[in-house]
């Protein structure tokens, strides 16, 4: 099957009808009972007002607006999307020849803040782009979801691609763009496949492409693949990549909305942001504004992962507390572990200690405690996680992914990593801590782009809330969580049966003992490789 083959799904060339808008609504009405019948046969789906939802307490405690159709409709059948009010917002916009400035004003009033993490008011961004006259304008969907531990965007792209397409078309109409790009990670082959199919189906139905639904509005969407660079999630680096160059951020001489892709006014929106758009125009900006908090309207999709009982995507109104998310929906820490911290915002975010679990989650409140909302990654850490090692992990990521253009990020983060490596190996000093803080502040204040500016966040926030753990590593050469290998002592207990297997496998030959007697590890030669623990048949070796 070629990648753009439309499957056996039904497509209808709506523009051939006398009234394409009526034809769309007729199709919706005709297909709805077909969808209803199919869903009635499933035990994991239940009716939810006008629509449906997945059954079970994990889902019933959520408010799934962006994820409404996910795992309910068939993403490869455009008719399913249409039957649940899909493309109706676009149809109404075109039918009524809606005013662009009104659309933009409504989006602004709704207060949909960018869900990629920056939290900028989407309507304000659109207003800026609308202001400028140019031969071309572009809408870019940022689907370069690179935060490790985050997969909200992937899920939406795979399970409800049309929501993103319709969102882009509405954005395009509002700002006066005729072309859209979806910049999607190459690591998401399924999303790429399904997007291609969805675009082909939409075009065949006259819902994308030239003269949508017979109107004067034309909007074509193209895919552009990433190639494994985290920094290409940064807006200007993304545009460099589409233009065929190394993904290095631009100096922010011009706002993207004024001079962006190929020099033209461009709006870049995150996948989840776009997933909200058609619901806002269907239900009105007030409806959206009423959900969430004053600071942040609407819902947010979080990827709840790590040491959690129920891992998965959780969509809740802004303002929901961490406690509700972690315990009521997530089922608490898995395997009876003790909650230590919640890491939000990926490598640009911070760690929120367990005693702040009642914090309501929105842009402002997370920023106030030294973290960020970010794209929605939420990693649950327990007492077997070392906070110094977590900071080191994120810094290693950042150093790997830094584009190298500006000195503070390229050199500064590397120095930070070196310090963290020494601390986790038991070679840190107290002076390292003060130097670390100063260095982090300089990197944060002087880096060219968001990657560098936010890179120190994991370090600064763990220093703020878990300083004692750093001191334990430095002053006592001890890792309380039992993670930092160089600081662990391996000991053979009296459960040892003297089989000698560990002696034979030890790479440095530091284990000795008589047959059938308890064996002994010479700590001065032990390299903490862990082989002995792995091979011991009676689990007689402990690590602490």
């Amino acid at each position, binding site marked *: 099957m070629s990648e753009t083959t439309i499957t056996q799904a039904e497509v209808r060339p709506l523009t051939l009808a006398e009234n394409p808008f009526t034809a769309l609504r007729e199709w919706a009405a005709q297909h709805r009972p077909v969808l209803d019948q199919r869903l009635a046969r499933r035990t994991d789906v239940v009716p939810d007002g006008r629509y449906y939802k997945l059954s079970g307490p994990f889902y019933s405690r959520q408010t799934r607006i962006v994820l409404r159709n996910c795992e309910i409709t068939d993403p490869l059948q455009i008719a399913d999307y249409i039957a649940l009010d899909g493309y109706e917002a676009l149809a109404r916009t075109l039918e009524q020849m809606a005013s662009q400035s009104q659309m933009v004003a409504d989006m602004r009033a709704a207060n949909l803040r960018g869900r990629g993490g920056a939290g900028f008011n989407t309507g304000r961004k659109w207003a800026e782009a609308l202001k400028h006259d140019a031969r071309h304008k572009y809408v870019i969907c940022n689907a370069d979801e*690179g935060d*490790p531990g985050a997969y909200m965007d992937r899920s939406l792209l795979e399970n409800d691609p049309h929501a993103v397409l319709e969102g882009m078309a509405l954005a395009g109409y509002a700002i006066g763009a005729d072309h859209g790009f979806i910049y999607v990670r190459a690591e998401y*082959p399924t999303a790429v496949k399904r997007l291609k199919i969805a675009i082909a189906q939409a075009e065949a139905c006259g819902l994308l492409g030239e003269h949508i639904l017979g109107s004067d509005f034309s909007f074509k969407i193209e895919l552009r*693949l990433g*190639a494994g*660079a985290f920094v290409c999630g940064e807006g200007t680096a993304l545009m460099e990549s589409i233009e065929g160059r190394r*993904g290095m951020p631009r100096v922010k001489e011009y706002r993207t909305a004024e001079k962006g892709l190929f020099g033209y006014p461009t709006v870049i929106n995150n996948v989840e942001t776009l997933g909200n758009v058609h619901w806002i125009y269907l239900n009105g900006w007030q409806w959206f504004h009423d959900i969430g908090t004053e600071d942040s309207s609407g819902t947010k999709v979080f990827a709840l*992962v790590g040491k959690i009982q129920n891992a998965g995507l959780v969509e809740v109104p802004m303002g929901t507390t961490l406690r509700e998310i972690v315990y009521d929906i997530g089922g608490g820490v898995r395997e009876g572990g003790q909650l230590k911290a919640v890491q939000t915002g990926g490598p640009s975010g911070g760690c929120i200690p367990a005693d702040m679990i009642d914090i309501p989650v929105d842009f402002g409140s997370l920023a106030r405690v030294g973290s960020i909302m970010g794209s929605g990654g939420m990693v649950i850490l327990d007492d077997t996680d070392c906070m110094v090692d977590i900071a080191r*992990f994120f810094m290693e990521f950042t150093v790997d992914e830094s*584009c190298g253009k500006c000195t503070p990020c390229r050199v500064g983060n590397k120095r930070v990593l070196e310090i963290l490596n020494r601390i986790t190996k038991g070679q840190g000093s107290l002076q390292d801590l003060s130097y670390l803080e100063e260095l982090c502040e300089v990197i944060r204040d002087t880096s060219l782009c968001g990657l560098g500016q936010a890179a120190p966040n994991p370090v600064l926030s763990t220093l703020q809330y878990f300083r004692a753990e750093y001191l334990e590593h430095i002053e006592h050469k001890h890792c309380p969580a039992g993670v930092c290998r160089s600081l662990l002592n391996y000991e053979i207990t009296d459960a040892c049966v003297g089989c000698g297997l560990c002696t034979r496998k030890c790479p440095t030959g530091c284990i000795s003992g008589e047959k059938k007697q308890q064996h002994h590890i010479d700590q001065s030669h032990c390299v903490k490789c862990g082989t002995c623990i792995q091979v011991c048949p009676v689990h007689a070796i402990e690590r602490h």
Partner: protein
Amino acid sequence: MHDTPRTPVPQNGPEADLYRQLIEYIKTKEPKESSLIDVMHFTQDLFGYVPKTAQLLIGEMLNIHTTKVYGVLTFYNYFTEVPKGRYAISVCLGTACYVKGGAEVLAAFSKELGIKPGDTTADRLFSIVQTRCLGDCSNAPIVMINDDLLPKVTVKQVPGIIARYRKLAQDCGQAAAPAGKEAVSS
């Protein structure tokens, strides 16, 4: 739009046909910078790497200086100048997979195959790629082999996984297939 390229490409041998396909593909693209990454992806998928000759060819046909082609190749993780193995093993080291033991799984693959992350086995069957998040965090730790996603992989499973793919390669014939998108359903 495109003239016949002047860059000398092999006319015989295993890659001759690949070059013919590449030239045909580039001819369908606009000869400018913004076509570069798409063409690089095609080349990487087709050859399993981006050979020097291909870089020169791409530069010529797209009207881009070869240093820029090389610059893009070396910037992005996806593009390699060294052939990837038939089975590219990506061990996810995203946050969720890391806290669930991803690093240990990576070490196990490395030990079992006798190569470091980033390298390819001598028989060109396997290469290990150290990836950042693959986006399936609730099934951590994740290993992706070509397009197959293996969830909740443990260190103990690693030798068995490798054996399975070795057998598959044997069954499909050991002729070195270009390390493209050959996927195996597990």
